[in-house]
């Protein structure tokens, strides 16, 4: 194995910030969710990579990745349920229009 760990980290960092950028700028809630998925994914890569390169004998990173995937699946499911509900009520899912939720 001759690829340095930093390479992986760089890739995941770029992915992370692509997600952040999307989260900050997109107006569609679904697009924002997709950005969140990107971020989660990049974190997953970091978990795995740290585990593999720095602590190969142990499995924390590995399992956290597994759990994170599970959690993100759950989160996505709930979020999409909420979104569809909002869509039913308001006929769009633009983020600016949803500040009425704050009371």
């Amino acid at each position: 194995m001759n690829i340095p760990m930093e390479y992986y980290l760089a890739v995941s960092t770029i992915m992370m910030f692509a997600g952040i950028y999307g989260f900050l700028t997109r107006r569609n809630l679904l697009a924002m969710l997709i950005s969140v998925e990107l971020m989660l994914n990049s974190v997953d890569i970091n978990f795995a990579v740290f585990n593999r390169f720095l602590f190969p004998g142990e499995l924390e990173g590995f399992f956290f990745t597994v759990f994170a995937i599970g959690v993100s699946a759950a989160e996505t499911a709930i979020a999409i349920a909420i979104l569809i509900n909002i869509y039913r009520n308001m006929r769009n899912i633009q983020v600016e229009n949803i500040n009425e939720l704050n009371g």
Partner: protein
Amino acid sequence: MDFSLQTIVFLFLATVIIVCSILTVTTRKILRAATYLLFVLFSTAGIYFQINYSFLGAVQLLIYAGGITVLYVFSILLTYSQRKKGDRLKSSKVVAGLTATLAGLGLCLFITLTHPFTPSHFEFGELDIKTIGFSLMGMGKYQYVLPFEVISILLLACIIGGILIARRR
């Protein structure tokens, strides 16, 4: 670094991830974004395979690429409104987001690349599924039955919540 197959594969995966990530967040059409996300997820699975976490790669492919993406596509189609042509972005928001993002990116890359990691020398063996199973179900040190149970309850709660929320009143 010699151009072994490993390297070429990695470079390919990295390119796909970077390009597709950026395309995901910059494309105007939401369906395309989902598609690009799918590519990113596939490539991530490739990364897992490359570092010999094939179980993880499989999970990634199954849940993310298989499940979640399909969910996205469905919900996109469900909430697609004819009136809205694309997703026009506010330029001030883009500038602010871009600035923050680039600054953060620079900072993080700087830290990542300058931090003296001490990689241990290891053998790149495949992680056998038996070890994974025992660790996941065991109750000893470095074993993960408790988080496993917590996650399962979380998933259950999500299922119930999802049904409740999405139910027509």
